[in-house]
């Protein structure tokens, strides 16, 4: 059973994604911030990490960078509700540049999430 690690500081989002993915047959783990997520992955690497970008302390971009440096093969999907722009780039663009192969802008539909997770895990 493939495993997914959700890293998001919003409990409701974590619960929503857990419910959706467990229903689809995935094993789901949770972390409330980037540090906790990295610590969890080091102990038990998941098949996919769903990483929120805007989090307190260590944000998702920094976490993605660190994760890819330590685990070059890690599969990462970045999600965010933020929309700040740096020129024409947004956070998800930067996340892709740092190594997140897939991105989803919140709010997304659960089917979109499922399609993206399946596509990434079976890649």
């Amino acid at each position: 059973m493939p495993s997914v690690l959700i890293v998001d500081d919003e409990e409701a989002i974590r619960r929503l994604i857990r419910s959706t993915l467990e229903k689809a047959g995935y094993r789901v783990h949770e972390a409330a911030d980037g540090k906790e997520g990295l610590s969890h992955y080091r102990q038990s690497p998941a098949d996919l990490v769903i990483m929120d970008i805007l989090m307190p302390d260590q944000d998702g971009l920094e976490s993605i960078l660190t994760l890819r440096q330590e685990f070059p093969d890690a599969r990462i999907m970045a999600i965010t509700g933020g929309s700040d722009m740096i020129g024409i780039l947004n956070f998800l663009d930067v996340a892709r540049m740092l190594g997140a192969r897939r991105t989803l802008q919140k709010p997304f539909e659960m089917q979109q999430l499922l399609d993206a997770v399946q596509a990434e895990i079976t890649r």
Partner: protein
Amino acid sequence: MSPQDLAAAFPPPENFRSIETLVRTLSDQASIGIFLSDPEGHTLYLNDRLRRMAGIPGTSTPGECWLNRLASEDRDLIATEWSEATGQGRSFSREFRFQRPDGSLRWVMAEAFPLRTDGAPSSGYVGMVRDITPRQLALEALHACEERYRSLAALSPHPIFVYADDAILFMNDAGTRLFNLPSPFLEGRSLSEFFPKEFLQDLPSAHPARGIEPAAAVERQFVRSDGTRLDVELIASQVTFDGHKAVQVLATDVTAQKDTAAQLRKAHKMAAVATLAGGIAHEFNNCLTAIMGFSDLALPLLVPDSRAHGHVQQVILASKRARDLVTQMLMFGRQAEGAKQRVSLDILLKETLRLLKGTLPDNISLREWIPGATNSIYADPTRIHQVCVKLLAHSELALKPDGGVLEVRLDNIHLDTSMNGHDLPLLPGQYVRLTVSDTGEEVSAEDHSHKLEPLFANLPAGTRAGTELARVQQIVSEHGGTLRATSTVGQGTTIEVYLPAIIIPGSVSAPEPPHEGASDFTGQKEFLAERDKER
């Protein structure tokens, strides 16, 4: 002392010699020059002071005329006036210059009075001469200084003017230009003729000569004769100008500075609002994710077609609408006037269509094909919104009053040199294509050739619709794109807008549509059903 007292004090004949000694002593010690002359003006006596003033040696004869010591430029005039005065037996008073043997000049003030007793003719003149050279030098220095001031002030690019009471004493060219006043001929004219009373009222001024700190600058507003408003900073100081107490004002046009400051404040405010909006949007999107997501999870748990099922579907629809609104809010909220930014054309277009649906007559059917994964474009969202609105308005107009189908499609397209039938004036690359079609009345062959310039179908030239489409072409061109319009017999008019796409590394593009000629409505049923439900 009366003559009797004098006679008593100095008994004859010694009194005469004593009076003479007295007078000589007084004369020799006097701080002014003294001379005596006969009724014809010939010099009889000069005191030492006058000799020194005029540079007349002590050995010269008393008959030597002081007129001989005048500076050559003054001699003729003074000599004439002296001659006239003595000839008429009247007083004489004049300023002139002595030229001494060493060539130096002394300015003097000479006054002479006829000696008379009891109305008898003058028996001679007594004159007093004061050395006024220091005063005159000071005056000359002052004039020279004022001349230098005028030259410098006249050439200064800084507006300067001087006034006393209500009169303009001086204004340089920079000043007349700033205040848009008639130049020259300002000097002597009234201040109130050109400046409102409150403009110069209560100006704090300092006296630079007294070592006081310069007065603080004061800001005033001025309206020129052409109606333009100026914000002006004034610094005033007390001066002496042409011998008058006056006020000198340095004016600085700060209109542009204030405008810039205002724009900067506005930009800061907009940046703060954008930051705030971004923060709120982030939280809002998280909330919407939960609302949409849990609604999605709840839907399969409800009986299909039940009221609860329908309610939850509406929650999902409303959440999607809210999602698009947040994106639009951010798009327009962070926009500086005319600035370009990354724009998701699908969101702009959906919002425009949503508003259009409410106004379309029943005999016009709207069909849309707008995938969510269209590439972004780099554009001014306000102007691209105008493009969408004008294209849709044009097609709607073409369908009235008979009705028909209005179709809107958005897709990604890659243009390369091998693309069949493509003669677009665009470089090869990725583009976003917006297609607006209508099944309006067919266009005649001669009108077809007028499709591109200006872009109107069978509308008379100069109509509002024609002007609107010309504006569309202009906006599209300014964004690096192009526009193509075609009309096919039996199928109506199609307008395609091509805009350069932004391709971000790692992003996944939406799939390209099938080539033209294939069924364009396959797969659109879901969209149509969705649209019908909304309606």
